[in-house]
């Protein structure tokens, strides 16, 4: 249950039995394929989810950087992001465990949507907690969750964003733990969540590694993936961890700048791996954006999906070990990468994924590089248009067609 110093099960006693029950189920069903759980999950991921996703050589990026760039196309997964790998895995596991009800937190709404989708598919009751602020700024995803008939519970506390939604979901779980499973959306939380979510997302690197060997004839020089909570990151890295020749880059949201304003309790970035300090949050010891006194700060990123003060404990450990290199790109660079991919490759990437793409500008690679495109960016269009205009991003096309 731990990764070096990180991880653990820092949860209220009321949840410990559920956490232990889940750890047991994880071992039996996920690790040992009891009752054919893994086989069934793979079938769902193929038929419902659309796996495998392609590993695509990006012609324009390859030309730009003078070496082959391959995109792992998680944006083509049902729902438009890698999130479904995990949501489907956990909802199915909850069914194997006999749980009748699913709760989940969501920030930008991607995990909530994936969970609602998986619950509709597998016919399980679903309630999603979402901060009031997020509800009002992520309306399309709220519509999608409601369209899948999931209840969306508004959380009015605090700033009304992801942290508060997690707190509220933990409370719901603590109240209804006997018949309810909490589908955590990333490689965070108490054991077994970080390991379990990693395993559900590891299909990304399982496929990418096979595809690389088949298409490139060799392992890539590096794998690049964006890191918020880190589920896409760990999923992209998992099957390459033992390939020592493959460098692993976790690209964090640099936001405006890598600082913490102690006074206001705000970090204008979300780079927990690069700039966080050890702490304990949401069930695990990990790297956190926090004040000197240990209060968790409000993080920031132009990408709502990366905007989280914590990070998966295993990633924290891999960074300390030197196996994973944390890097970061700022909001402007991510926006520019968003436009570059849209214009040059015909793919509108999620703003999260745009961070990974943007890192290619800073990097100095020689060989083939795999970049995980964790999701599609339709959901981000309004934000990108607004922010590109506000910041006068040179790469942004004009939207003047409406003005006549």
């Amino acid at each position, binding site marked *: 249950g731990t990764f070096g110093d990180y991880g653990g099960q820092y949860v*209220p*006693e*009321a949840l410990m039995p559920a956490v232990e029950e889940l750890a047991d189920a994880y071992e039996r069903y996920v690790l040992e394929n009891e009752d054919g759980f893994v086989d069934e999950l793979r079938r769902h991921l193929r038929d419902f989810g659309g796996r495998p996703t392609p590993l695509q050589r990006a012609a324009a990026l390859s030309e730009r950087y003078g070496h082959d760039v391959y995109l792992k196309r998680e944006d083509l997964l049902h729902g438009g992001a890698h999130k479904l790998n995990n949501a489907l895995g956990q909802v199915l596991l909850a069914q194997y465990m006999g749980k009748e009800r699913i709760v989940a937190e969501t920030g930008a709404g991607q995990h909530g949507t994936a969970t609602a989708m998986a619950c509709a598919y597998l016919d399980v009751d679903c309630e999603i907690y979402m901060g009031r602020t997020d509800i009002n700024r992520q309306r399309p995803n709220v519509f999608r969750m409601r369209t899948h008939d999931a209840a969306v519970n508004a959380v009015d506390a605090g700033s009304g964003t992801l942290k508060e939604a*997690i707190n509220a979901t933990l409370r719901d779980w603590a*109240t209804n733990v006997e018949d309810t499973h909490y589908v955590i959306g990333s490689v965070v939380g108490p054991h077994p969540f970080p390991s379990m979510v990693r395993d559900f997302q590891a299909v990304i690197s399982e496929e990418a590694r096979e595809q690389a060997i088949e298409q490139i004839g060799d392992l890539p020089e590096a794998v690049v993936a964006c890191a918020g909570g880190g589920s896409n990151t760990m999923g992209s890295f998992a099957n390459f961890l033992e390939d020592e020749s493959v460098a692993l880059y976790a690209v964090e949201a640099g936001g405006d700048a890598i600082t913490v304003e102690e006074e206001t309790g705000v970090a204008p970035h979300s780079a927990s791996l690069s700039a966080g300090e050890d702490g304990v949050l949401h069930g695990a010891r990990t790297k956190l954006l926090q004040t000197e006194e240990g*209060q*968790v700060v409000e993080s920031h990123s132009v990408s709502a999906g990366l905007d989280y003060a914590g990070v998966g404990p295993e990633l924290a450990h891999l960074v300390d070990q030197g196996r994973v290199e944390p890097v970061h790109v700022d909001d402007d660079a991510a926006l520019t990468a968003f436009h570059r991919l849209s214009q040059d490759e015909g793919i509108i990437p999620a703003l999260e994924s745009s961070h990974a793409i943007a890192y290619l500008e800073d990097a100095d690679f020689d060989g083939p590089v795999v970049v995980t495109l964790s999701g599609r960016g339709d959901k981000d269009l309004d934000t990108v248009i607004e922010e590109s205009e506000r910041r006068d991003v040179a790469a942004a096309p004009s939207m003047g067609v409406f003005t006549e």
Partner: protein
Amino acid sequence: MRETDAMGERAIRAAFEGGPALVPYVVAGDPDPEATEAYVEALVRGGADVVELGLPFSEPIADGPTIESGIRRALDAGMTPSRYLDLVADLDVDVPIVTMTYYNLLFRYGDGDVEPFVADAAAAGVDGLIVPDLPVEESGPLREACEQHDLALVFIVAPTTTEDRIERIVEQASGFVYVQARLGTTGARADVSEQTYESLDRLPDADVPTAVGFGVSSGEQARAIVAGGADGVVAGSVFVDIVASGENVADRLERTAADIKAGATEASSASSVSEPERT
């Protein structure tokens, strides 16, 4: 600095010896440190045997909306771990003080080592700790530091806690065992859940006292809980609500404390001669 006969773990145990104990909770620094001092004194006047004083943390995952609001008020007003310890040191009451907070604050205080906080807390006059996001499994370093500085480390037993976990918890517990009355989070409620009695029944005759919390807000509830076998009651949200109102706070804290205490005491007199009465 306040002076008491006993310190730390022994002081808390002693507080449970004179009959059913009332353990009220307020958030330190809600709305400011001076007010908190006055409120703690009022609670003691009302009959508090131990005061549970919240050290506010930004992510209070085990607390309900009432206490969460108190925590935000305290944080907004500038409460910090250092100021908290100053506040405790300044308190002029002769009941034990138990710090309720989350693990990250203790962890950060010593830059990853919890001992410095425990040491400073002991020096400031704290007698025990309740850390709701710290199950026994993860409690090793903190328990060690508490033993070293003679502080009680109070663990929670929840309705979901299994038999073998109860055994382990009771084994590690010091001060008292906090019996969580129901699933969910803190927050005042009108009734006493069946789970409360079940939990109390499942607790073996440990040599630490038991106090029931989560939802306790009235003398009537306290009477039923003590009649059910508890050695005390913990009440929080009802007091934090009074603080939030800002109206005649000290008086109302004292009267409410007295009311709950009276209920507990009444049950104790009754139950000393008969079976636990259940409502």
